[in-house]
């Protein structure tokens, strides 16, 4: 369990980091918390010749809420997300989700940027970001661009991020409605067997004004369930429409057999988990 050799770089700013990455190209990997990358390197499934560590880039470590928008620097750790009262007020689902990631030690090191950028379908933050309708800021040699989380994921470990770009910032609208992140896993530290992020807003008349659903680890990318979300808004939260929304979401999933169980089981569990998330979010709405 020893990694290959590499050269270590610690740029102090985003432009410096981008320049380094441009210069080193395919031989380099950006390291954030490293808790996905280092184990992969120990298995020698990744053998980068250069590591560009972003820990010294101070502007990447921030949480701000203003004008109804949340902006989080990519190097903000899950522990920091959990600790931030400001963020908790603006989007309580973030704390709920973060607490279900890995274990305390990993959350001190694991970053939001790393979690969303590496494209691992097992990660929890991508679906959450889709649910929150977040956008990711990418900085590359050609400057900055923004990609919506719902359009970012292409396949397992393949994203809209170009190899020479660094994901620097995550932005999403503050959300005060009902929320839930439900995750079934075998134990603390495990990826999801199935997980669902749900946001629901209840109107003054008790109707569902806004709904957003996304799923974790049930396909080779996180899944934003657009149709299911729309159904809850148009048809309400009675059991028939919840059933139909769940059925619609289940139409999108494509789980694979693994040690957590066969796809058939995951389909069943995913529907239960989603239903629970919807119920919980609605109860909190």
């Amino acid at each position, binding site marked *: *369990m*020893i*990694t*290959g*050799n*590499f*050269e*270590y770089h*610690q740029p102090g700013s985003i432009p410096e980091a981008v320049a380094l990455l441009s210069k080193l190209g395919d031989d380099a990997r950006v*390291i954030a918390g*490293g*808790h996905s990358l*280092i*184990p992969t390197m*120990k298995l020698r499934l990744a053998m980068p010749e250069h*590591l560009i*560590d972003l*820990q010294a880039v101070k502007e990447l470590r921030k949480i701000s809420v203003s004008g109804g928008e949340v902006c989080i620097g990519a190097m903000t750790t899950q*522990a920091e997300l959990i600790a931030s009262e400001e963020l908790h007020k603006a989007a309580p689902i973030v704390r709920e989700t973060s607490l279900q990631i*890995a*274990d*305390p*030690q*990993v959350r*001190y*090191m694991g970053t939001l940027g790393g979690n969303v950028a590496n494209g691992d379908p097992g990660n929890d933050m991508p679906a959450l970001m889709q649910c929150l309708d977040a956008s990711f800021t990418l900085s590359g040699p050609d400057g900055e661009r923004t990609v919506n989380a719902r359009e970012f994921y292409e396949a397992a470990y393949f994203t809209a991020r170009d190899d020479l770009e660094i994901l620097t910032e995550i932005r999403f609208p503050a959300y005060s409605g009902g929320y839930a992140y439900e995750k079934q896993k075998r134990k*603390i*530290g495990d990826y999801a067997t199935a997980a669902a992020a749900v946001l629901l807003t209840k109107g003054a008349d008790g109707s569902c004004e806004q709904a957003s659903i996304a799923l974790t680890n049930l396909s080779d990318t996180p899944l934003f369930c657009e149709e299911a979300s729309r159904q809850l808004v148009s048809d309400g939260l009675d059991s028939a429409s919840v059933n139909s929304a769940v059925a619609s979401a289940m139409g999108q999933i494509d789980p694979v057999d693994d040690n957590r169980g066969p796809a058939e089981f995951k389909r069943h569990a995913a529907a239960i988990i989603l239903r629970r998330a919807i119920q919980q979010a609605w109860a909190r709405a």
Partner: protein
Amino acid sequence: MSKQTINLNVNGQSVTAEAEPRELLIHVLREQLEITGPHIGCETTHCGACTVDMDGMSVKSCTVFAVQAQGKEITTIEGLGDPDKLHVLQEKFKEHHGLQCGFCTPGMITRAHRLLEENPNPTEEDVRFGIAGNLCRCTGYQNIVKSVMAAAEELNKPESVT
């Protein structure tokens, strides 16, 4: 690959090590600095036997390159107490049989220390959730949880405030 000079503050002392960038913090601590309290149990960030405190965070030192720890303050089990005055957690683990083979103990106590720093009045649930990154094969955790709860209680006694 050439070695780099790494300056660390370990258990209150400035130390220097020469290491390749790929050398893990746990290896530098154990092999160069002879800090053998933290152990290697899984190497895949699951077991927590290698837990140390780094700038106020509990981290698994098998998943941190030593170069990443440049300039940081590291506290290991060796820095928590000394033979003449054990840390309350060390006392309570002894008192409540919170260990058996002892292999997970340094990581467990180091983690519990940070947990109590952040949450001085934990519930049993808080403790169980807070130490879930540290595996133990011997104790079934029941007496570990008891030890941590007892340490919290002791630390909260007015007379023990220093």
